[in-house]
């Protein structure tokens, strides 16, 4: 009895040691999360082939805001009265810097550290046309701001966008938020709505250095890349809308992308049949080609119809369409960009696919100039089924992200 017992003692020690050794290893398997960062899980046909940025990031994933909060945001923001008094003396970039700093001054430490990112192209590329709940953004969302903070943010946007033009500039931005509130109550749920739009400040605001202000949410992204005297970039700017029909809130009606659609239809239908044939592309398009993640992939060869070959009135129709993007900016900024695009108009090309009336899914228009790049894609509805909705992107061959390629 005693002998057999003594055999067990070393054995016992061995098992104790084994057990303790095992306990050291009880940690979550570091490989496990790899599943969730995979780009596009086959089998569910979703997800893209990836691009810059990854999962997570400060704030972002799983973004959701109640409909009440989202409606309170648009109610507080839709009027266009500047309340800031301390930055009134400044103009241009100095005013933007002043208003950005005034906004930052209202933020708590935690919000401030979330909104402020170091400047890097990867941080600047963290935008999407998807809701933030499906494609994470950096920065802070509108739902996390209180009244004072929201007012300071509104003052900043008022200085950056065109004011008092129905469905353009600042009004177009509000219209996009209102439409997203409609999606939230039309089956989209709480990942939709104004509360899920993010602002981030990438780099330190200054009148001389490189930094970016990025406002991005579902169907609306507008970046401003400031680089002192080297100039400012306003692209890639994404504009889209669902639902396509007019939506109302706070006694105002919005249909933010309808003017653009009509301008393209007016342009295409003005063309002669031979001009239409030259502009028509043989391929079909289910979306814009240069959407998020497709930076600096401008086609080496421009396709379609050269605007310089058109009569002056038709060229004016091209310029009208371009203006609906450029004139979203504050008038001074817009004028400089528009001068460049107007000068380059003869060497700009237009092309399209689908119908000239721009009414159905897979209707598509492209404006490709030496600098300007605009795409407008009509495609099937996502939340509002059986009704097409547009995606549109404005890029610039040289000043996307402030030219920081």
């Amino acid at each position, binding site marked *: 009895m005693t002998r057999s017992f003594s055999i067990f003692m070393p054995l016992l020690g061995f098992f104790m040691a084994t057990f303790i050794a095992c306990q050291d290893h009880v940690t979550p398997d570091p490989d496990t999360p790899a*599943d969730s960062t*995979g780009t*596009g899980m*086959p089998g569910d046909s979703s997800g893209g082939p990836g691009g810059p940025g990854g999962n997570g990031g400060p704030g972002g994933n799983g973004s959701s805001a109640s409909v009440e909060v989202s409606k309170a945001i648009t109610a507080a923001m839709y009027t266009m009265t500047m309340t800031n008094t301390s930055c009134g003396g400044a103009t241009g970039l100095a005013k933007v810097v002043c208003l950005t700093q005034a906004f930052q001054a209202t933020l708590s430490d935690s919000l401030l550290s979330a909104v402020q990112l170091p400047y890097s192209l990867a941080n600047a590329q963290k935008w999407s046309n998807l809701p933030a709940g499906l494609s994470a953004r950096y920065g802070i969302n509108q739902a996390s701001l209180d009244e004072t903070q929201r007012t300071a943010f509104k003052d900043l946007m008022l200085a950056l966008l065109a004011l008092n033009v129905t469905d353009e500039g600042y009004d177009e931005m509000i219209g996009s938020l209102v439409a997203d509130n409609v999606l939230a109550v039309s089956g989209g749920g709480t990942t939709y709505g104004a509360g899920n739009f993010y602002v981030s400040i990438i780099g330190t605001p200054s009148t001389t250095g490189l930094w970016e202000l990025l406002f991005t949410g579902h169907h609306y992204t507008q970046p401003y890349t400031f680089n002192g005297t080297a100039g400012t970039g306003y692209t890639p700017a994404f504009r889209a809308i669902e639902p396509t029909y007019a939506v109302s809130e706070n006694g105002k009606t919005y249909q933010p992308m309808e003017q653009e659609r009509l301008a393209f239809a007016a342009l295409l239908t003005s063309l002669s049949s031979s001009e239409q044939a030259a502009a028509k592309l043989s391929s079909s398009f289910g979306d814009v080609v240069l959407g998020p993640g497709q930076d600096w992939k401008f086609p080496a060869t421009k396709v379609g119809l050269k605007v310089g070959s058109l009569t002056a009135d038709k060229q004016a129709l091209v310029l009208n369409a371009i203006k609906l993007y450029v004139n979203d900016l504050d008038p001074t900024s817009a004028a400089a960009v528009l001068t460049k695009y107007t000068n380059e108009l003869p060497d700009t090309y237009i092309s399209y696919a689908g119908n000239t009336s721009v009414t159905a899914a897979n209707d598509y228009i492209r404006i490709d100039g030496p600098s300007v790049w605009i795409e407008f894609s009509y495609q099937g509805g996502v939340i509002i089924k059986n009704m097409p909705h547009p995606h549109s992107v404005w890029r610039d061959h040289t000043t996307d992200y402030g030219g920081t390629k």
Partner: protein
Amino acid sequence: MAGLNKSILDNPILIVNHLKKWFTILLIPIIRGLSAGNALGHPMPNSVVLLTLHSDHISTELQIPLSELQAAIGIPVNDSSAQLVDRLGSELRAYLTKHINPKTLDGKPWRVTIGALKVHETQNAINGVYRELTAQLELTPPAGADIRKFILDYDAVLHQVVTHKILVSVSQDWAAGKLAEDAPAQVGVIELDIVNNRILPLTINLEAGSAWKGLISMVRLGIQHIAEGTDHLLFILVLLLPAPLLHTRRRWTDFGGIRYSLSRLLWIVSAFTVGHSVILLLGALGWVRLPSQPVEIMIALSILVSAIHAIRPLFPGKETWIATGFGLIHGMAFANTLANLSLDAGRMALSILGFNVGIELMQLLIIIVTIPWLILLSRTPVYRIVRLTGAVLAAVAAIAWTAERVTGTANAWAGMVERIAGYSPYFVFLLALLAIFFTIRTRQLKNA
């Protein structure tokens, strides 16, 4: 469980690591992440190509969203998708034949056979619910050509709708140790080269595979299968509970000695192994096939019977035969796992071998970490309490599982069993403490 992909042989402390696995697998819920989290855009659904590599051909599933297919071919396949395959099957086959042209790196064409076509609804976070066409294809390289390196020239939909994307993934690659249980691994995307306005075929270049890698992955699967299968674990433990004891006709009595205990253990475990190995072989080869529900119910019942036996001897001295019989039942569950891999004969033989080795290794590990304590405890008066507690708990778990598997609906008890099972390493620890404490105490009492 990507951690399981590391070669077992790379790691000298295999057993320890897999014990760790046993803990973590049970402690940490497996979360299959929402793939959309990384998407930047692409509101239109993508096409998917899923490759399953066999030794001489590749089974392929194509998933094509009907809305995109409609835009590409101009036929309203999405607007009116009812009986689509009946109405337009031959046109769709001709279309696919035209647009899938796998070839060797030096351009020799592979043979393509298009099997079943199906239309069904699917959904993802971005697009919601939508309809897609799936096609089962068989791609066969010319004799002597490398099956792991080839050019996939596939452009259905994309040839016309240039914003479309085709995601190509490997869902099973036995020779590389990748089994269908893992999430498919993306190997490339076929899409428009926007700058040059062209669509390039995708060159597939898979890492070299071998029978050895396949075998090892099957050993891993066997280990995982036991480690994750709380019911198999519990069955083995409860079967071993009375093994060190002598018995009369009606009840368990005293410790039977080390030699007696070990010999009985060996017989019981070997019998169970023989039982499940035989049926695994027959089942995996397709000679015996039972639907999984009755098998799962019988497994739950086998635990109940063993638990009762641990309380009062039901079949004293015949444990070997009972273990063999129950081995047959558990083996059928193992066989279903293997049959789902649909491997060819040579690989299936290796898989059965590897899978079985994995099962044995994990069983052995469990026996090694528990049996010494059981033997120690069985020499003390408290073993009666330990045995009865263990048996009753196992019986409760078995009843909960039986109810769950008969009704097909989850119940709270079974859920609790799974949660408690997560703490099994702590029970081993507790068992060890009890064993040491009572062994010393029993000795002191005797000496006193």
